[in-house]
């Protein structure tokens, strides 16, 4: 038993905020960079494609002011999606620690290399992917004007996700697809990462004569 039953929750919250900040920042920077490149290129193609994001980000456009509005929106969206995702992941990982696996030291606090817990990682990030598509779909359904086509661009996802359409049912179908496909994608990321760090620590242990962690 931990000295405080709330400790795993508190640490999960801390990590979730940290991950949310980083993910939000990278999302914002990604859109800022894409918009700035579209602005500098002078070609109308990328600008026409990016301007579709205005459906989700009011005020956004690939203009000098619009790139900053896009940064703000992408940061906010990235942060909002990433915090519950990371909280779910870290809470799952930390709450299952019920035994002491390695000797703790001050140095271990800053040098220990994280392994990704693949099932929690795939579940949390698969949920985030699914929820993201569900919300994107529902947003278009809610904002739909009767005289305009409903989500003509998002609908193209049905090329990859048979049965998907821009409707409430389509949103649920999209959620299920991305929960599965996102789960597979992030499970692959976690699996490759773990393989790489375990082979790295095995090599380090070989050269030091120590067992790998």
């Amino acid at each position: 038993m931990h000295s405080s039953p709330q400790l795993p929750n508190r640490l999960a919250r801390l990590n979730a905020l940290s991950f949310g900040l980083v993910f939000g920042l990278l999302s914002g920077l990604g859109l800022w960079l894409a918009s700035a490149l579209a602005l500098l290129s002078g070609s109308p193609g990328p600008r026409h494609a990016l301007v579709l994001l205005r459906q989700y980000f009011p005020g956004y456009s690939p203009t000098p002011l619009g790139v900053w509005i896009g940064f703000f929106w992408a940061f906010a969206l990235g942060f909002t999606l990433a915090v519950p995702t990371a909280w779910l992941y870290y809470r799952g990982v930390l709450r299952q620690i019920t035994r002491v696996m390695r000797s703790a030291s001050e140095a271990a606090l800053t040098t220990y290399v994280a392994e990704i817990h693949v099932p929690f990682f795939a579940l949390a990030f698969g949920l985030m992917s699914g929820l993201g598509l569900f919300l994107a779909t529902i947003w278009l359904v809610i904002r739909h004007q009767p005289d305009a086509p409903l989500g003509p661009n998002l609908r193209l996802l049905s090329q990859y996700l048979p049965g998907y359409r821009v409707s409430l049912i389509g949103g649920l179908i999209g959620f299920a697809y991305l929960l599965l496909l996102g789960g597979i994608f992030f499970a692959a990321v976690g699996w490759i990462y773990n393989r790489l760090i375990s082979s790295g620590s095995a090599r380090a242990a070989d050269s030091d004569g120590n067992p790998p962690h």
Partner: protein
Amino acid sequence: MTERSGALDDQLLIQAFARLRAPALAVSLGVAVGLLLFGATAVLLVRAMLAPAPVAAIGPHLSLLGYYLPGYQVTWLGAGLGLLYGFVLGGALGVAMALLLNLNHFLYLWNLRRKIRRSVILDAL
């Protein structure tokens, strides 16, 4: 606090503040994003090959990526290029993510240590 609960707390702290290894995250995200872009291109190409009538333009929306990834188009060569671009972009994302998360943890712990030292000194006085 018993010795066992203290050790478990230490275990929690170690796991919560564990570092991500940037090269490993770069390779894993790079491989996954590269395969994703290759797969997205390949699906459109295969669907066009299997279509009963010739397709006028394959993946006009996905080929917009060519504005950002020079040379990329919805062809088999473009799919190969997409694999490479995806690896590079996913890798860059992995490095940035690992470094920023590690920096965030480092700064948090550094600030915590600073506060603890300060309170210890003030208590001693």
